[in-house]
């Protein structure tokens, strides 16, 4: 038979094996979309993981380079600050939603939760509507409220066994309802100076809010890396049935992951309120899709178990740079949205193109 004397044997470990391979139960749910698990296939998936993150980074870099080349304003230090400041809220929200996406679940509750939390915080700190002046305590209570919303989403999803798409969609409506009731026709203007300073006071050129966001992201990353909530969320997203078989109370940890996410949304709502200067019911409109898109662009997949807080941050920066750059390069407002949509798809497509064959099932 053909050439027994190959100059060198196939390098079995150097290159990741293609899809075909040894027996491989996608360990996860019945849909077979869980990460494949043979050595060959697994190595492929994992390297696809790495490649995807790297590709997102490259896409971000390309965006930066292109905009910098076209627009002199884009290159300024002031604009860098602006981008960081603009990314702050989305960064916090995306950190939160990453915990949910890691589970393989989805969260559409942001508009409602943020609306309710924004109204709550603006009514708890010194404001134009009532005589409350809880200051930091008010902010803490708001974050707790966000966490409570998250926990409720989690409890409803896991105990009633309802798809998270639906529970969180319903939760969004409930949150908006609560926000509307709290609003009662008059917008509470935030008079609390320290909260106001979040948006206006600068330290080393960055707003307080940006620094808080950095801290929050770091905290999110730490939770993901060092706590059961974070680690189990990844494991559950990787193979929920197996985690269950190992005796882990999956429902509890899913719920807690939603709770953590909710706390971040609560913080995000406080930041938005600080920025807007008053309690706005619709403060969270559109943040659900923005946060999910950011996370997914960064390589946190909707199927769960892949990505993470830091990856999501790549997406946050990419989206912010894109919005900023399109304005600075003078793209007509009429087509900005369309251009943004195309670039997002292109960026993801180009990023995955080299590994598309190894990706297996893509939903």
């Amino acid at each position, binding site marked *: 038979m053909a050439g027994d004397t190959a100059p060198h044997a196939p390098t079995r470990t150097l290159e990741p094996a293609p899809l075909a391979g040894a027996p491989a*139960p*996608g360990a*996860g*749910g*019945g*849909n*077979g*979309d869980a990460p494949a698990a043979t050595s060959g296939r697994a190595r492929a998936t994992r390297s696809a993981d790495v490649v995807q993150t790297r590709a997102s980074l490259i896409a971000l870099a390309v965006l930066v380079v292109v905009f910098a080349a076209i627009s002199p304003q884009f290159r300024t230090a002031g604009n860098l600050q602006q981008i960081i400041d603009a990314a702050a809220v989305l960064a916090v929200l995306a950190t939160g939603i990453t915990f949910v996406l890691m589970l393989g679940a989805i969260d*559409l509750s942001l508009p409602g939760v943020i609306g309710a939390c924004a109204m709550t915080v603006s009514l708890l700190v010194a404001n134009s509507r009532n005589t409350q002046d809880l200051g930091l305590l008010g902010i803490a209570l708001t974050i707790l409220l966000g966490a409570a919303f998250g926990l409720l989403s989690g409890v*409803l*999803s*896991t105990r*009633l*066994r*309802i*798809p*998270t*798409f*639906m*529970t969180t*969609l*319903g*939760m*969004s*409506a*409930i*949150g908006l*309802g*609560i*926000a*509307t*009731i709290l*609003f009662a026709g008059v917008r509470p203007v935030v008079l609390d100076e320290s909260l106001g300073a979040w948006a206006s006071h600068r330290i080393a050129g960055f707003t307080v809010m940006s620094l808080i966001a950095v801290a929050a992201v770091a905290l999110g990353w730490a939770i993901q890396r060092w706590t059961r909530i974070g680690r189990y969320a990844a494991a559950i997203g990787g193979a*929920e*049935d197996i985690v269950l*078989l190992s005796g882990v109370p999956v429902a509890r940890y899913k719920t807690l992951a939603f709770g953590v996410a909710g706390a971040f949304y609560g913080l995000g709502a406080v930041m938005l309120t600080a920025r807007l200067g008053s309690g706005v019911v619709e403060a969270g409109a559109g943040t659900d*899709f923005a946060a999910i*898109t950011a996370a*997914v662009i960064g390589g946190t997949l*909707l199927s769960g178990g892949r990505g993470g807080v830091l990856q999501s941050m790549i997406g946050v920066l990419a989206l912010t740079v894109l919005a900023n750059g399109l304005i600075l390069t003078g793209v007509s407002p*009429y*087509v*900005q*949205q*369309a251009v*943004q*949509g*195309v670039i*997002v*798809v292109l960026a*993801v*497509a180009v990023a*995955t*193109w080299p590994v*598309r064959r190894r*990706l*297996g*099932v*893509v*939903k």
Partner: protein
Amino acid sequence: MTETAVETTGPRDDDGPAPGAGRRSRRDLALLFMPGAVLVLLLLALSTRNPDLLSPDSLLAIADSAAPLMVLAIGVTVVILCGGIDLSIAALAALSSVLFALWIPLFGAAAAVPVIAVAALAGAVQGLVHVKAKVNSFIVTLGGLALWSGIALVISGARTVPVTDVDAIRWAFTTVAGLPSAVLIALGAVVVLGAVLRLTPAGRWVRAVGHAEQAARLAGIPVGAVKVAAFTTSGACAGLAGVLLVARTFSGAPSLGATLLLPAVAAVVVGGTAITGGFGGIGRTVIGALIVIVLRVGLSLIGVDAGFESIIYGVLIIGAVAVTIDRTKLDVLK
């Protein structure tokens, strides 16, 4: 070993003594009719606050209101069945409404045909990108959402495009034998799509791809083609929905119907179709769309404040799903 997994992910059997075969199928039957029962219960409950809701006129108005949503929802059902998601439907419907309004002077009533064809093509493009570049359908269609609304904005000059020749769209808003024609058109779409999915191999292919794409591929099912076809169908349905919207507002607009996305997906889920794919069907979505519409309009008519209305909507929609979905069909809950 292979079996181990099958068994462990199989139906949960923790509900006490073994149900006999008979009881089991009764349960299935109950689940089958649950969405319908929820719909009836909701109507009855709402009518205690507003008895007019049950009048024939009112019921017909509900059906009429539901028509565009229903058409959108059955389209996205096909995509969801094969495991994906289509977020572009509402934007595509808006674009279609603009195209329809612009093309009526050229083609008259027949403008609906090229409009639906263009929408189907748009769906197919998204499907191809998803299949060929292996980009998550969520992202592809999210990009689509932005792109189609951008195009609609540009070709309409960011304005509402009025329909000058109302006769050209009369077919879509008259009544036939006492029934609004929009309802009949929607039902026609339901019947055609339902028949294709039930009677031809297409339905199985879609479900097989949704349940176990790899197994489907290795059984020789043209997985890529099935997915592209699903997105094409979804696009075509969005096109038809756009046409129905024009017949409702006598104009096309770049934001017309853009708010129907989440209600449409909610209709699919409330009907009992698994959001993870594989299980469910068109008929369920029809009931789901009606439930969503009853919730949307019914609640605003029983006279509670906007805040409470929203809360009740949230609670009821979660409650509706809680009783309509068949949990044994969801291996892992996402």
